[in-house]
């Protein structure tokens, strides 16, 4: 016990001096994460921008309102509205040039006021995630609002529609409508009918999550931090061997386990710190609930220890420091690639994503995604915690075995 904490303290004291390495471990994920975020958000970090195509076959005042709604206010900054024919619209969509296509069928306005079912068609671009989501949300809001407005004020609106709008309506006429609307608002209470109108959203292919795309990069970026830090710290076994301190450890009676556990704790703390900084920045940027921070940090900590112990074991299995570093860096990049650090699983072909989730880092990133995107905290299942803890213990056992079978002796 005495050596366990002494070992942790000694490694923290030593590593603290290597600020360059620590900053590098931190800079890599922040740089790549920042780069991805900027790329994802279009030029200069501005909001995404896309085109919504509208085929207005009805061509009435009301259909014009719906079409116009996409160009209003903040939405207008995100979307350019383009009126097109069905053929042009479809062709544009197939070419992936627009974020969405909304078809307002002929007779929409009449059906609306006659409370007849009517179907709008919305097609979204499967290659994009944010804008199509916004388009379908807006369409639904518009239709909901339209439905309730019609339920409540349909007659009054019809009065306006049928009234003579060429001259100004007289005061009596206006106040009659106002009183009628007032009555209906009071009477309606919690009116909730299923809308007679429907929107037919042509669904994009499955697997397309409903969470912001940039957020899906966060776990991969954090894994980048964990992997680089774990790999970097694991070469400390060579450092200790070359300085003869491992040999000196073998002179002492039976303390290898305490030594290893202490070093793993120190590595776990450093990795958690580095991963934690990345995590907090991600939480701030994406506005993730802080209640998920403790569970996410705990997951990062145990995963960091597991990764460190396996990188350490690999280093110690190698014949010399150079081949140790070669082996781990040859593993590092393919693992990061497959494990979702450069492209999130959602963007990878299914079979690669399935494979990637089985890499150690992919497994950790996948569960971290679960944690930060699910509705509840501590969302990672108990099996996953057990798997990672077991891997940490096995990795350390392998390290202990290597220390005993000669790694410490030369």
């Amino acid at each position, binding site marked *: 016990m*005495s*050596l366990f904490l*002494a*070992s942790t303290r*000694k490694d923290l*004291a*030593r590593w603290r*001096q*290597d600020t360059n390495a620590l900053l590098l471990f931190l800079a890599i994920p922040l740089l790549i994460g920042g780069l991805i975020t900027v790329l994802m958000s279009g030029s200069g970090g501005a909001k995404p921008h896309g085109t919504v195509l509208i085929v207005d076959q009805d061509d009435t005042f009301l259909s014009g309102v719906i079409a116009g709604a996409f160009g209003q206010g903040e939405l207008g900054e995100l979307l350019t509205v383009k009126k097109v024919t069905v053929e042009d619209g479809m062709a544009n969509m197939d070419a992936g040039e627009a974020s969405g296509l909304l078809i307002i069928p002929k007779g929409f306005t009449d059906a609306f006021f006659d409370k007849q079912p009517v179907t709008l068609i919305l097609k979204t671009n499967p290659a994009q995630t944010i804008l199509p989501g916004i388009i379908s949300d807006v369409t639904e809001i518009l239709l909901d609002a339209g439905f309730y407005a019609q339920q409540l004020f349909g007659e009054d609106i019809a009065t306006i529609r049928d009234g003579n709008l060429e001259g100004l309506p007289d005061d009596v006429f206006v106040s009659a409508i106002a009183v009628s609307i007032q009555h209906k608002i009071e009477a309606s209470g919690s009116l909730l009918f299923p809308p007679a109108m429907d929107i037919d959203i042509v669904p994009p292919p499955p697997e397309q999550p409903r969470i912001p795309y940039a957020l899906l990069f966060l776990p991969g970026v954090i894994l980048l931090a964990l992997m680089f830090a774990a790999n970097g710290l694991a070469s400390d076994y060579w450092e200790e061997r070359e*300085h*003869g*301190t491992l*040999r*000196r*450890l*073998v*002179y*002492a*009676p*039976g*303390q290898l386990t305490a*030594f290893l556990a202490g070093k793993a704790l120190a590595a776990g703390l450093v990795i958690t710190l580095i991963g934690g900084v990345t995590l907090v920045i991600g939480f701030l940027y994406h506005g993730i609930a802080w209640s998920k921070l403790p569970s996410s940090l705990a997951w990062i900590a145990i995963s960091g220890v597991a990764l460190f112990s396996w990188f350490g074991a690999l280093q110690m299995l190698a014949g010399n420091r150079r081949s140790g570093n070669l082996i781990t860096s040859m593993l590092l990049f393919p693992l990061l690639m497959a494990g979702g650090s450069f492209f999130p699983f959602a963007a990878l072909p299914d079979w690669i994503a399935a494979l990637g989730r089985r890499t150690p880092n992919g497994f950790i990133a996948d569960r971290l995604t679960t944690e930060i995107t699910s509705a509840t905290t501590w969302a990672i299942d108990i099996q996953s915690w057990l798997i990672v803890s077991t891997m940490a213990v096995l990795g350390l056992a392998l390290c202990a075995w290597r220390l005993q079978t000669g790694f410490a*002796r030369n």
Partner: protein
Amino acid sequence: MLVISNLLKQYGDLVAVDDISLRAEKGTVFGLLGPNGAGKSTMINCISGLLRPTSGSVSVGGFDIVDDPTDAKKLLGVVPQELALYEDLSAIDNLRYWGKAYGMRGEDLASRAKEVLGNIGLADRSKDLPKTFSGGMKRRLNFACGIMHRPHLILLDEPTAGVDPQSRQRLFDMVEAERRHGACILYTTHYMAEAEQLCDSLAIIDHGKLIAQGTVAELRAKLGARDVLQLSGAFPGDSSQQAIQKLVNNGLSDLELIAQEEQNITMTLSDASQHLPAIFAALAEVGGNVSETSLRRPNLETLFLLLTGKELRE
């Protein structure tokens, strides 16, 4: 304290330690002498448990290092030939860490670390990192790390290599102090003078074999009072040897030829300086040509030469 019985260590075909047996008692310094590659470090590594002997046994304070390593290692302190320090951890933290590795804690650990640091003359550098130290300072700290836990048997593997005279004297003082406290010290070196100054008894090894063993006085007695004469130059093989044999027959009866090569002849005899003209003349007669002469009074350094026909250090 230390009993080595028929120790044999092989690296593949190479026999690094060849069937060596020794004993060293508490309160004494035992010197292990030999040239580079003699097998000194290999022996130390077998005693410390770092290497497993091919055969034979090592017992420390009655505990076998292979069968009962934990008990044996508690009694052992090792100062390895190569530095074994955390260069990026302060001097005092190095000492504390190694103390903890041997189960020390609390007040005992703190006071012992201070004491040892004072003994090695680094009290004012306690918070500094060893990477900022000179070679001699690192050696002293390396020594201190090995004796933090007050071991009963201390293995010192060439502690003075690359150390200035001042640091060397400090190391000797520390070895003396440990001996006074009752420790048994196994001191490895290839400096005979160090061994003569420090050691109560000695073993001389070469090519893994024990070639002489005893107290310093016993080994000196082996030498007798004969000088060692070394001649360099050009000496035709058989005829030089015959010329020297003739000298032996004509009165220089205690002259002994130790080694003879084309360019070197080594011999021992008493009162060598008086016989130099005769020896030069005899060699010149057979076409020999002496370009350099070295005449040495007997000491342990020359003992090694007598035993092996070669210098302890090249």
